[in-house]
């Protein structure tokens, strides 16, 4: 009854739905690895969403849109970094504020632009929408099953996977990455080992913010078919924060995690109508709760959570 084509279609859709989560999760991992719990993911994604959309609208170039989304995400993370790293403000408060600010800022710009177009509609140019279509690589995409499974996504997905792998390599295979991890585990130890704690905190938080920004651009540009809609990130940032735990603070694991959650998000369209839609809307949150529970049980032996997550570091504190 369930055909192979149906399953393939489902998997491809799941990966697409998981892509924004992938960016959000990897971005948040970068920040949490240096001990900064940034609850502003939703906000940074929103800022990235509107910046990417605007850049795409103005230039009609996808790469340009991504770069702008990245820079805007970085800029919003800079607000967070200055306040929490340099001024040692409470991380949770600043993160939540950043979320509120980011969503509001994005909606404000969006409404302003809709007014300016005069058509009641802020829309990306057609040639850009063409660039965001799923890739079609000659020969490779034509391989039966495998071609569809591996070579039929939009550019964002590939960029996301590349970023996740690069971050994994950086965090676990380079000295700079190990230094960054040491900061998240025990900043005093890192400091005593002559690691520039503040510098590396900034670098990681900003990179994380930039990555979140690209995820936001995906939300505004791809999900809604090139038409600007307010609140386009719609809670994906929050799921990303929880996904960090599912991924055990490993960017590679975030690839798997985000696609699993992507599948949960679209499950409702692929299931017989006997089960109410509300059940499927609930599913990602139930799974999140179960993941958190499982993580806390596993936490008893060899937890992966950075030991000093959420604590600011002041060298001369007594």
């Amino acid at each position, binding site marked *: 009854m369930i055909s192979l084509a149906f399953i393939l279609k489902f998997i491809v859709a799941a990966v697409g739905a998981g892509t924004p989560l992938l960016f959000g999760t990897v971005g948040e991992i970068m920040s949490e690895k240096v001990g900064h719990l940034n609850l502003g993911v939703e906000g940074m994604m929103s800022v990235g969403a509107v910046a990417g959309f605007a850049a795409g609208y103005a230039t009609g170039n996808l790469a340009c849109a991504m770069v702008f989304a990245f820079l805007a995400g970085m800029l919003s993370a800079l607000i967070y970094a200055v306040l929490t790293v340099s001024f040692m403000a409470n991380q949770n408060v600043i993160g939540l504020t950043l979320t509120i600010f980011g969503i509001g800022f994005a909606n404000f710009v969006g409404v302003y632009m809709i007014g300016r177009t005069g058509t009641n509609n802020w829309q990306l140019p057609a040639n850009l929408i063409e660039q965001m279509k799923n890739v079609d690589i000659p020969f490779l995409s034509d391989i039966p099953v495998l071609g569809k499974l591996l070579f039929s996504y939009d550019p964002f997905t590939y960029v996301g996977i590349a970023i996740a792998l690069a971050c994994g390599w950086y965090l676990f295979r380079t000295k700079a990455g*190990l*230094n960054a*991890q*040491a900061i998240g585990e*025990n900043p005093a*130890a890192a400091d*005593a080992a*002559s690691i520039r704690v503040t510098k590396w905190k900034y670098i990681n938080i900003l990179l994380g913010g930039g990555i979140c920004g690209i995820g936001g651009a995906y939300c505004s540009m791809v999900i809604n078919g090139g038409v600007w809609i307010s609140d386009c990130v719609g809670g994906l940032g929050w799921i990303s924060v929880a996904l960090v735990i599912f991924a055990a603070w490993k960017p590679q694991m975030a690839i798997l995690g985000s696609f699993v959650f992507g599948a949960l998000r679209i499950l409702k369209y692929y299931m017989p109508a006997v089960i109410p839609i509300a059940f499927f809307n609930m599913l990602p949150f139930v799974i999140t709760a179960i993941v958190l529970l499982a993580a806390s049980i596993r936490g008893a032996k060899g937890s992966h959570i950075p030991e000093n997550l959420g604590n600011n570091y002041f*060298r001369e504190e007594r």
Partner: protein
Amino acid sequence: MAEQEYAIRCDKITKVFGSVVANDQIDLDVRYGEILALLGENGSGKTTLMNMISGIYHPDGGTIYVDGRAASIQSPLDAQNLGVGMIHQHFKLVNIFSAMENIELGTPGKKLPPKVLRRKVEDLCEKYGLETDPDKPIHAMSVSEKQTVEILKVLYRGARILILDEPTAVLTPQETDKLFAILRQMRKAGCAVIIITHKLNEVLSISDRVTILRKGKSYGTVNTAEVNVSKLTELMVGRAVTLEIDRPKPEDPEDILKLVDLTVRRKDGSVALDDVSFSIRTGEILGVAGVAGSGQKELCETIAGLIQPAQGAILYKKENLAGKTPRELIEMGISMSFVPEDRLGMGLVAGMGMTDNMLLKTYTQGKGPFVDRAPARAMAESLVEKLDIVTAGVEAPVRMMSGGNVQKVLLGREIESNPDLLITAYPVRGLDINSSYLVYDLLNEQKKKGVAVVYIGEDLDVLLQLCDRILVLCHGKVTGVVDAAAVSKEQIGLMMTGESAQEVMEYGNG
């Protein structure tokens, strides 16, 4: 020219924290191939001074010369580049990393392949006679293993000037001997070593010279060979101190608490206390001796009502207390005070001020739904005065205080509640001489008032001088309750390893 000889010379170093002058124009020097002890009581500014040399703090005045040149040490990186390495009292290690990852952490250059790094660490171990497992994660290590990693970390960076902040506070005597052997090896290799401590016998056994700090000022430097314990104490405290502990005769002791066949199990099911029976008497200090982990902690917590015994009874005026909660004990009118080993964990709330900590014990006494803070504040203020507690104010968080002052707050609060029974677990651990003697005096004062005092101790000399009777525990069993005046340190030691009091006493007499 003479400058060249010194590895480090501090000239009039001053450091101020808010309104507290932690270091006031301190001079200090150390040469290569020498071990300098930095001696001082808690809060005399030893660690602050060393933190400035290692770049954690920045001095507000004065100059540090390294190898004869004035050095501006802005960060630990600067210190490292100057060849200065510090081993902190609280280890600065990343728990999830392995020993060698910690050693490599923060060093410049590319990440070394594990094989090369392991080889380098092993070579270093061989050179200085250290032992470590490079692949073992820190969280699986014992305290002394962690310390070895810290030393390796410093040596790996090529440090020739080593600073150790109270390295022996967490070590057993055997581990201390091992550490000292390593330090002597380093001295031989031409390193300059500064060791911070307040233990006098250690100063005498390891150092070449001693610099004494008192209340943030330096009180000169002496050659170790020319001093003895009492001279050092005098320099450190500022006056001659008698090192004898007073032991007033107990007045008509009476059984207040009787423990009968008490058996307690730990959470993992192992037996912590095995069929223990003894009595606690009023107007007397009962010492408890034993190797760490022989059941002392469980003994205290069972009496205090924090653990349910598996069997047996605790009799108080013919009533069985076993299994009652602390709140129930208070309601029964039993006035018991417990000064736990973990002062800032179990004893006081570290983030609260003195007033709030006082309230923890009395907040249920007020009328109505609101808490009356005035009496608690008055009590806090009177304690500050009575016990000479150094604090920024009664509302300042207690974690900001030094160890001795924290203990004074805790002990003071417990004594203020006029207990009939006072249980103290390692009350002088980590305290300097002055504070220790103050604690002994306070306990004796309680004893004279007729309070039954239980003193869990680790220093046998103190137990023998302070206590009236000594209970010896070995693997949760009582090997004997003896008269402290009629027993020797060696006899207690034998009982701690499991021989019964009867055997030991006969052996001692025979």
